[in-house]
């Protein structure tokens, strides 16, 4: 279980990493298909620059590099990783501003991936629906579900 602002990696057969009920947060999945190494981060906010005293994993600018580092530490390289993004919905609009945290989370996460030269293989983002993402080490398989819907496997594009 990867809760808000947390991340996890695994290469143990049978393990499933899951982020339940993503709203405007992003579930970032990294997968090395050949070696069955997976990682999942539950990113809450785009960047930490407005809160320098909280170098926490909830921010994309910290969480993405940390997830890459931990995934690579299990014995892969950034070249062999594929990324999947789930979440980044806009469920409510607060404050009357155009501040759409979901979209900004997605943008910040993609920017970090590009910086680390990791290919984005697929995403289920934006819209207004909450989502759950499950990452099975076996396969590896990345499954996404929306409220009341069926679980669907994300295929690498």
């Amino acid at each position, binding site marked *: 279980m990867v*809760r*808000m*602002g*947390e991340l996890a990696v695994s290469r143990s057969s049978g393990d499933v990493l899951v982020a*339940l*009920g*993503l*709203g*405007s*947060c992003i579930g970032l999945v990294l997968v090395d298909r050949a070696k069955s190494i997976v990682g999942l981060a539950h990113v*809450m*906010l785009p960047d930490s620059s*407005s*809160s320098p005293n*909280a170098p*926490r994993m*909830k921010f994309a600018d910290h969480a993405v590099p940390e997830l890459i580092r931990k995934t690579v530490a299990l014995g892969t390289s950034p070249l062999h990783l594929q990324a999947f993004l789930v979440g980044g*919905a806009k*469920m*409510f*609009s*607060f*404050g009357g501003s155009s501040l759409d*945290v979901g979209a900004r989370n997605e943008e910040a996460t993609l920017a970090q991936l590009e910086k680390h030269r990791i290919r984005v293989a697929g995403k289920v983002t934006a819209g*207004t*629906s*909450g*989502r*759950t993402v499950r990452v099975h080490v076996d396969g590896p398989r990345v499954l996404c579900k929306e*409220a*009341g819907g069926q679980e669907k496997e994300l295929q690498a594009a």
Partner: protein
Amino acid sequence: MTTYSDLELDALRELANIGSGTAATALSQMLGRSIDVSVPKAAALPLAEAVASVGEPELVVVGVVLQVFGDLPGLAVLLFTERDADRVCELLGVEPSTEFATSALQEIGNILCASYLGAIVSMVGLDLQPGPPQIACDMLGSIVESVLLANAATTDIALLLDSDIRIEGEGSAVQFMLIPSDEGVSSLLARLGLGG
């Protein structure tokens, strides 16, 4: 990182108790039913734990969210299970799962939130106004998470004032939560003669 003492949490719980009691009276008048209110929970939780404390993250619920403006800025959230949302609509004479049902539930959000905040206003003399209600039917985790994000940049702790408002004889309930921002809570506690 902000933490709250037991005494401060007790004071906030009492405030939530008065707020939800008043909100329950308003709901009782709307629905013509007796309403029970449990003793509210007041908890300051790390964000990672906050969602699970509210409920089962994948449970599909109807959430009505109102932004709170003024001296205690934050968000108010009402959560109904789908069944309870339908039942509340029936009690109001509105057909469930229609446009009318949506606006009826938003109106309940308006009334509960206004009476809850009104009670706090008259007790501590703060200036508080609710914004317009927004509604979503989705996974509990997604709704609560999106709400918590509104304060998340500045804090790692979510303060939840969580009341359970039950309609007697129906087995139906509304979960009413007030999630104030840190700054508002400090000034509120100062006004109550605590903290600061």
